[in-house]
């Protein structure tokens, strides 16, 4: 059993449940918990729920030190780009402390941020910087696409003993879907087949899952059966599930909101070029943002971002392509 929940709500429920469960979980960030009427403050008090100044280095650095000494901080960072002013904490502090200490400390924390806000926020606020946080030994990267995953993976992220970056896509905030009741956990590091199919594998993350599912629907009407795989966790990446899907379909389209060479898609394509090569009947095809920043104006913005139409035509092109080696 479950109930319909908005994506954003599912995240809030997960945080609330985990804070109830474990008193070492603290939650802070900018522009939250401003008054005593804040629901988290009401439930958990001002010690565990706090507001911060615009000080990402301190916010994230304090989380690292707190995690090393026994708290499990969740830091609300709002937009993934704001992490960049203190990116050292994300990729060069939190994931290194355990290793450098020879296993003496652990750093259980969650850096939570939205991303990919394709709604006129222009070049500095609309990015998809997922690739920069992949493949960092010691760092997990979670990117849900449904309310159930949003809840289940936030709970897993909070319980994880490693630093986890949890990115939620702004365009999904109000999307409603069913979330199982109770203590629902989704394991980190396990991809999910969001739609089964036989002719082509589409790998996509977050908002791109939604677009890919819509594209798959359009393709189904033309008799093309697309399988949509959502890695859900980009680090560690479940290469195996992706390769198994390619084994079945023989064809791979990757959809990503970032420009091509800064996309998670490129990294996944690289893995498949090594581990799934023998199953491929056609070149992989990436559907990504164009090699521009995201412009402000709507016609230009939608021009540079991946569309359902571009996904559909990419699928058709890999289906048309010749089988491999000359």
């Amino acid at each position, binding site marked *: 059993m479950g109930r319909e929940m908005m994506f954003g709500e599912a995240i809030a429920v997960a945080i609330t449940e985990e804070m109830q469960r474990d008193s070492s979980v603290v939650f802070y960030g900018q522009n939250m918990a401003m008054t005593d009427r804040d629901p988290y403050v009401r439930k958990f008090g001002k010690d565990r729920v706090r507001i911060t100044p615009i000080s990402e280095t301190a916010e994230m650095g304090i989380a690292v030190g707190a995690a090393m000494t026994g708290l499990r901080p969740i830091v609300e960072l709002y937009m993934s780009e704001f992490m960049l002013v203190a990116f050292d904490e994300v990729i060069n502090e939190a994931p290194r402390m355990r290793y450098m200490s020879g296993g003496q400390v652990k750093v259980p924390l969650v850096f939570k941020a939205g991303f990919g806000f394709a709604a006129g926020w222009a070049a*500095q606020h609309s990015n998809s910087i997922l690739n920069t946080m992949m493949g960092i030994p010691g760092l997990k990267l979670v990117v849900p696409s449904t309310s159930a995953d949003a809840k289940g993976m936030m709970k897993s992220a909070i319980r994880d003993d490693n630093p986890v970056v949890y990115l939620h896509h702004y365009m999904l905030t109000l999307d409603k879907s069913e979330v199982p009741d109770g203590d629902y956990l989704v394991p980190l590091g396990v991809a999910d087949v969001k739609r089964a199919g036989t002719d082509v594998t589409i790998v996509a993350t977050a908002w791109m899952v939604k677009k890919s599912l819509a594209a798959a629907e359009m393709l189904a009407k033309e008799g093309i059966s697309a399988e949509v795989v959502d890695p859900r966790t980009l680090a560690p990446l479940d290469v195996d599930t992706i390769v198994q899907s390619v084994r079945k379909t023989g064809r791979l389209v990757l959809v990503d909101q970032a420009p091509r060479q800064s996309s998670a898609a490129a990294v996944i394509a690289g893995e498949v070029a090594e581990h799934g090569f023998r199953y491929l009947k056609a070149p992989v095809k990436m559907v990504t943002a164009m090699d521009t920043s995201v412009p*402000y104006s*709507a016609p230009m913005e939608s021009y540079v971002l991946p569309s359902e139409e571009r996904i559909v035509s990419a699928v058709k092109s890999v289906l048309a392509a010749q089988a491999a080696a000359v």
Partner: protein
Amino acid sequence: MQSKEALGKERLIWMFTQMSRIREFEERVKRTFVEHPGVIRGHAHLGDGAEASIVGSLTARQENDLVMPSYRCHGYPIVLGTDARRLMAEIYTRKDGICKGFGGSMHLADPAHHFVGTSGIIGQGIAHAAGAALTAQVKKTGQVVFSFFGDGSSKQGAFHETLNLAAVWKLPVVFVLENNFYQAYTHIRLEDANFMAGDPLSQKAKAYSIPGVTVDGTDPLAVYEAVGQAAERARAGQGPSLIESRFYRFTPHGNAITVPPVPTQFQEHEAIEVYGNKAEFEAARANDPIPKFRKALIARGAISAADADRIEAAARAEMDEVVKFALASPLPAPEDAVNYVWA
């Protein structure tokens, strides 16, 4: 520099005119969300309430001095001579926009009018402004750079690093900390250690051994004098100063953040919406810098009530025209997006 008492009638009228123009422009931006929903995208931040501080500061400018504000940047170019029609067209996502529809409200730029550009990321524009001052220093242009940023931004590492380095290098830059008592929805009493202790934010200057002054940002002449002295100091090669200019913003931080197609508008000011503190908001509104300056100018004999009315009417008429122009301007072509990636 001229003392504020010595400022001529013409200059004072210019100041009042610019303040009125900013106010009318921002009113139009706000109304657009109601009258033409969807025409403005993303996040827009208004400068109503800041007019005295902006215009007072820029009155201290000399020809060729550069200006680098934050993402809350509509007011400055209006004063600097940028075509307000093209500013509005940019905010309206249009091809005739000052940035051709690439930047939007947060990223206006008009280098031809000494408005170099802005960053939407907190604190970074402070460093960029110091960089422009480095250019002025190395090229010996005699320019001073006017850097504007918020109270909230003064808690970002970029503020600290830049003020120290600007002091060490004696860069010709004036740092104007616009303290409007809020960073987004957060009241300053929740986040600034100086404020919590009852100290002015200008005290931060002590960490860099530079002058630090707090000034009434609703009085354009007081701001002019404080910023002007700092600019003189900078121009004389004595390095940067920090001016804390205190005023209130009359509109909430920005239009509400929604997910399309849910429409977005400006809500009530955070004082009321978040903190339920109507008294604070109303006291600030009662201290509106524009009628206050109007009254002071009339008292000083610089202007008659009728002249003031005419100036305000002209600003209204201009901004009606501005909206019309912007609405009529075409959208950029989708393929335009591939331009300007590389120089």
